[in-house]
């Protein structure tokens, strides 16, 4: 009897140990990634890093201003395409329509969420780059939208559905048209949840590299218009990290630190400002 109980206690403790070790195996690399990025990244960063254009390998100095411009331009363009498209589609799914068609659209939207990001890049190339004058910020934003729209659409539809029916009925009983009830009252009520969906999509697309490789393509200079090739933080991290120059490796860490602060910052904002 004694033996049996100690045996069971031992098994219980072993089991707890297995669970804690599993957690550590994941947490240790996470801490290490953040730690090394901050450590090496901080050494690369100074004022010039943010304001100057890249220099050829071996030449000291230079910065990543083109990539920062690119990431901001691509993010703005992608959001300009994705936010209205996704919210309008979500309104149809939440407020109107017959259920068969809606089921199909929902299914396809969920399927889009499983699309590998590199395939979104091929799509952007085949549809935009080939037909509309080559690599450009617009093509990059299109490829990123393929990833952003499904996320925003889903978050918006769920948010709209959570708005109580009474609010719509109250609006309608005042004689307000339904579409005005939706755009002025229902959307406003659902706004915090939709905003958190938008911000999460924004954080996701800012960190994406694969869709940009053959759409935005990269650019050693500033892009003068959205119809030119454009750089981005993830693109230069990839190019610099796989180059043979130690000088560029350090720049890659610097860019990684900037990108990580942006992406994790947005995630934190969602977590604390718009608690779901």
């Amino acid at each position, binding site marked *: 009897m004694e033996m049996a109980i100690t045996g069971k206690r031992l098994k219980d403790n072993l089991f707890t140990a297995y669970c804690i070790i599993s957690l550590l195996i994941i947490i240790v690399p996470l801490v290490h990634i953040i730690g090394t990025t901050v450590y090496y990244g901080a050494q690369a960063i100074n004022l010039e890093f943010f304001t100057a254009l890249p220099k050829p390998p071996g030449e000291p100095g230079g910065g990543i201003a083109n990539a920062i411009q690119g990431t901001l331009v691509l993010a703005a363009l992608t959001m300009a395409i994705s936010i209205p498209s996704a919210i309008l589609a979500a309104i*149809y799914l939440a407020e109107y329509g017959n259920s068969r068609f809606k089921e199909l659209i929902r299914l396809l939207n969920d399927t889009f969420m499983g699309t590998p990001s590199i395939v979104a890049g091929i799509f952007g190339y085949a549809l935009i780059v080939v037909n509309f004058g080559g690599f450009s910020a617009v093509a990059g934003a299109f490829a990123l939208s393929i990833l952003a729209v499904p996320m925003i659409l889903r978050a918006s539809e769920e948010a709209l559905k959570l708005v109580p029916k009474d609010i719509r009925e109250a609006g309608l009983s005042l004689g307000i048209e339904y579409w005005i009830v939706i755009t002025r009252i229902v959307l406003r009520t659902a706004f915090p949840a939709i905003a958190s969906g938008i911000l999460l999509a924004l954080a996701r697309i800012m960190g994406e590299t694969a869709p940009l490789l*053959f759409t935005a393509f990269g650019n050693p200079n500033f892009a003068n218009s959205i119809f030119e090739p454009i750089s981005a933080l993830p693109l230069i991290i990839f190019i610099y990290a796989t180059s043979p120059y130690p000088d560029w490796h350090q720049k890659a860490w610097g860019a990684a630190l900037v990108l990580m602060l942006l992406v994790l910052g947005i995630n934190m904002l969602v977590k604390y400002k718009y608690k779901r």
Partner: protein
Amino acid sequence: MGKKMKGDKIFKNITFLFALSVLIMFSLLFYKLVADSSLTWQKLGLNFIIGEDWDPLNEEFGALPFIYGTLVTSTFALIISVVLSLGIAIFLTEIAPKSIREPISSIVELIAAIPSVIIGLWGIFVLAPFVRDYLQPLLSHFSFIPFFSGKTLTGLCMLTAILVLTFMITPIIATIAKDSLLMVPEDLKEAMYSLGARRYEVIRHVCIPYAKNGIFGGIVLGYGRAIGETMAVTMVIGNAYLISLSLLNPGYTMAAVIANEFTEATGDLYLSSLIAIGLLLLVLSIAVNLVGRMIIWKWQSQAKG
């Protein structure tokens, strides 16, 4: 009144068009990938999938090394990840003190937010040297197992890609497993405890069997993610057209070859073959994702009764 109806109708039609655009984009995506890869399917047919040689200079295009690399890395990563995810999910639902469950969950979920190119950067400069200098000597004792028979000089090899993938998909599986375990009714557990059962017995005989299907759905979704992951794997797998059992040899994946060679593809058959790999990758990950989602939906509606 008539005017009012008109505004409603226009707005409804606009929203309909945007909902419809999801269907249009989806059809267009498939159409484009099929049309732009048709040259490869016409010229090579099934030989494209079973061909072992990828030699663009001699116009030889066989995708097997990439299909093999994708399946091997994602499958090994999945196996390790399932073991870790279960431990993490159980820790977060049954073992950890209530006050630290929320913060630790958030930290685990944070992993999914880190851009994959940053994980790749860390993979090149930290994980690959670690695999070469520390894991490799350890594994050399097991070199009679074909998986560990090779040798890596750089650390850029399939094993490193597997570890990177494991790290990236574990939070996904662990989070879904945790949510599934949270749905286990409290009274079932209480009943077991009142019979004098130990914690691991309750977890093994009550919690896991009850949440089994939900966990399984999460595992399938994690697999879908592993198949499609591009940047981190491209940066650490070594990029060699090899079909080798040894995980210490470099390899290549479907996503990685597209990322590396697409802009350099000269010649119609070359480009069309890369797009054909993209089509295979899309079909594979959509199929895996749909299966995963269906399992989870079915289980959720069952569990909610």
